[in-house]
């Protein structure tokens, strides 16, 4: 049975568990620092970097402002090009639609292109319950699936695993799901990639049904866009007879030419490349080339809830490049699982509460999973103002009266204080955290020469009202 984040503990508790795992911290640190370095070089290469970000943010705002019209355009264009469009209000509805479509083909095993949305809605588990085996084909997603694990990063879901862990998973699990790993497999990354190639080749050649997400859907043309590196995406999108793409409604972009902005930002931010090795685009179906049947499932699952939040709706601009998590001092210490969602890091801290509401302790704890240092604001290609949204969500938690903000904040800080590394991360550059800190306290392991900020003699709630409340 596939694991899920269902019933995951609130951030402080989950984080406390994760920061105790030295191997995990080491893996996450190494990976995030590597991508950060590559990204920095390629962002610096563009003298117009800030202009690209301006455009990208404005393009996505344009989408959000005109979403109804753009979605209707997508529906019209995809239908005209031979595709079928379905609408799903929530995860259960989306899973039902996909399950019914797969059932209608009579297939028992299908292949998948990595998609965070299908992870979000728990599609693999829903298919499994219907007796359908959905095989992941992206290398990182394969590692997660074979290891009966959960994704911890939006671009590199197995970022928390190192090569020897991956070797063990492959050697142990591949044979149970198809072609076994070669005898004497070592932990050399090239050998591990080769093992994945061989394991998945027979699945690609035999697959009749594929499921994908999409990075973008162009409204004016009805074109879907999938960006990937390995060619597993091309295999799924090309070789299956039936293709089912499950896409969040916010993935729309107005114009074809908008891709010149978004594709260039995405690759540079996500993997430190000018373009990812493969970008596939398709519009409906084409005679004699690729799937004969194409279904697009447009999914809400909380996106309209986020859209209704005047401050938070900017989180829907996200193009899932992962840069915010790669740069986040909290993520670096806790890894992705602590956030209890397929969307970890700074985007997870705001998107999950916006999608699901603040009614449960897990989502209500996420706006506090931040030092407010603002590093994410600086790297986000669509200029999401994380700190604004975090503060606004904290205010909502407070005003909702569901979770007294002082208590939640103190619990978060208290849990962190017991763990010097997390604490150090939390205070680093945390000028804005002042209002949330309990008292001036000597911190073990504190090597920075900055003092903790003084704590004002008022609660966050009254501070917020005094500073921000008047504006509303």
């Amino acid at each position: 049975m596939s694991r899920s984040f269902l019933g995951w503990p609130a951030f402080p508790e989950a984080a406390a568990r994760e920061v105790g795992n030295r191997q995990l911290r080491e893996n996450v640190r190494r990976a995030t620092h590597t991508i950060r370095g590559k990204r920095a070089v390629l962002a610096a290469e563009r003298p117009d970097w800030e202009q690209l970000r301006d455009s990208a943010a404005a393009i996505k705002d344009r989408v959000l402002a005109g979403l109804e019209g753009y979605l209707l355009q997508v529906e019209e264009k995809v239908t005209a090009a031979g595709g079928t469009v379905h609408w799903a209000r929530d995860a259960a509805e989306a899973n039902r639609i996909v399950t019914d479509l797969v059932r209608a083909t009579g297939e028992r095993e299908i292949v998948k292109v990595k998609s965070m949305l299908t992870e979000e809605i728990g599609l693999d588990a829903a298919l499994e319950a219907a007796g359908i085996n959905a095989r992941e084909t992206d290398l990182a997603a394969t590692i997660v699936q074979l290891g009966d694990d959960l994704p911890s990063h939006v671009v590199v879901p197995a970022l928390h695993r190192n090569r020897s862990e991956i070797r063990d998973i492959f050697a142990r699990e591949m044979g149970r799901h198809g072609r076994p790993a070669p005898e004497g497999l070592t932990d050399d990354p090239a050998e591990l990639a080769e093992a994945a190639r061989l394991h998945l080749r027979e699945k690609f050649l035999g697959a009749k049904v594929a499921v994908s997400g999409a990075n973008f859907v162009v409204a004016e043309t009805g074109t879907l866009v999938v960006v990937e590196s390995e060619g597993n995406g091309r295999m799924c999108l090309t070789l299956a007879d039936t293709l089912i793409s499950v896409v969040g409604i916010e993935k729309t972009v107005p114009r074809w030419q908008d891709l010149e902005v978004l594709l260039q930002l995405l690759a540079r931010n996500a993997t430190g490349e000018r373009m990812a090795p493969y970008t596939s685009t398709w519009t409906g179906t084409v005679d004699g080339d690729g799937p004969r049947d194409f279904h697009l499932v447009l999914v809400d699952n909380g996106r309209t809830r986020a859209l209704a939040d005047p401050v938070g709706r900017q989180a829907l601009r996200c193009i899932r490049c992962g840069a915010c998590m790669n740069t986040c001092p909290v993520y670096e210490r806790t890894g992705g699982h602590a956030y209890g969602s397929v969307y970890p890091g700074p985007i997870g801290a705001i998107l999950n509460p916006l999608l699901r509401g603040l009614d449960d302790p897990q989502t209500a704890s996420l706006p506090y999973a931040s030092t407010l240092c603002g590093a994410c604001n600086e790297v986000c290609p669509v200029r999401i103002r994380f700190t604004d949204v975090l503060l606004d969500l904290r205010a909502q938690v407070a005003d909702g009266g569901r979770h007294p903000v002082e208590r939640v904040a103190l619990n978060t800080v208290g849990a962190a204080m017991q763990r010097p590394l997390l604490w150090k991360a939390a205070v680093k550059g945390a000028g804005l955290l002042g209002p949330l800190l309990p008292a001036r306290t000597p911190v073990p392991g504190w090597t920075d020469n900055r003092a903790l900020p003084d704590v004002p003699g008022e609660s966050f709630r009254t501070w917020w009202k005094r500073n921000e409340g008047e504006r509303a």
Partner: protein
Amino acid sequence: MTAAAREEILRRIRAAAVPPAPEPPRHYLRHAPGTDPDDRPGTLALFAERLAEYGARVLRATDPGPAVARALHEEGARSLVVPDGLPADWTADWDGEVRADRPPLGKAELDATDAVLTSCAAAVADSGTLVLDGGPAQGRRAVTLLPDLHVCVVRAEQVHSALSGALAVLDPARPLTFVSGPSATADIEMIRVKGVHGPRRLVVVLLEAPSG
């Protein structure tokens, strides 16, 4: 049911009452940074450099036949699939087995073929990208996916400085594949490994008009 879902989602979007947003600013470069887009030799040199950077081989030629033969020979290919519309002289100098994709070859046959030779619809210097659109001499997508070696002939005039220029001439109604170097992954400790599923070797024959 999906009709009810559609109405409900559209209603929720209207209820969110998002204020109008202005037309996006577009003050970014439409050509490769640090280059003069009118400098054709410079643009071609950049294209070759970027391809090589991501692990593709580049052969510059004025006569396609010998260059294609050399690429196939040096990569050790014995069999080659060619799509409809490929100029006959491109394979004239090669002595290996040529398989036409007509009638369409099965997946297993394609998988058992060493190489594929195509043209492209456009190319991008800045990112070392070539774009296939399934047009003449390019073939359907499976043909350029299953053989392990892809040899692509790019005519010099097809090379745009940056993505903007290529997008402007491409037809989104066709299935497009943008290829920037051979298949790769960095999923294991962020170490770049060349070659997973897609063609693991990419050779670009950059075709320029003979001078004079």
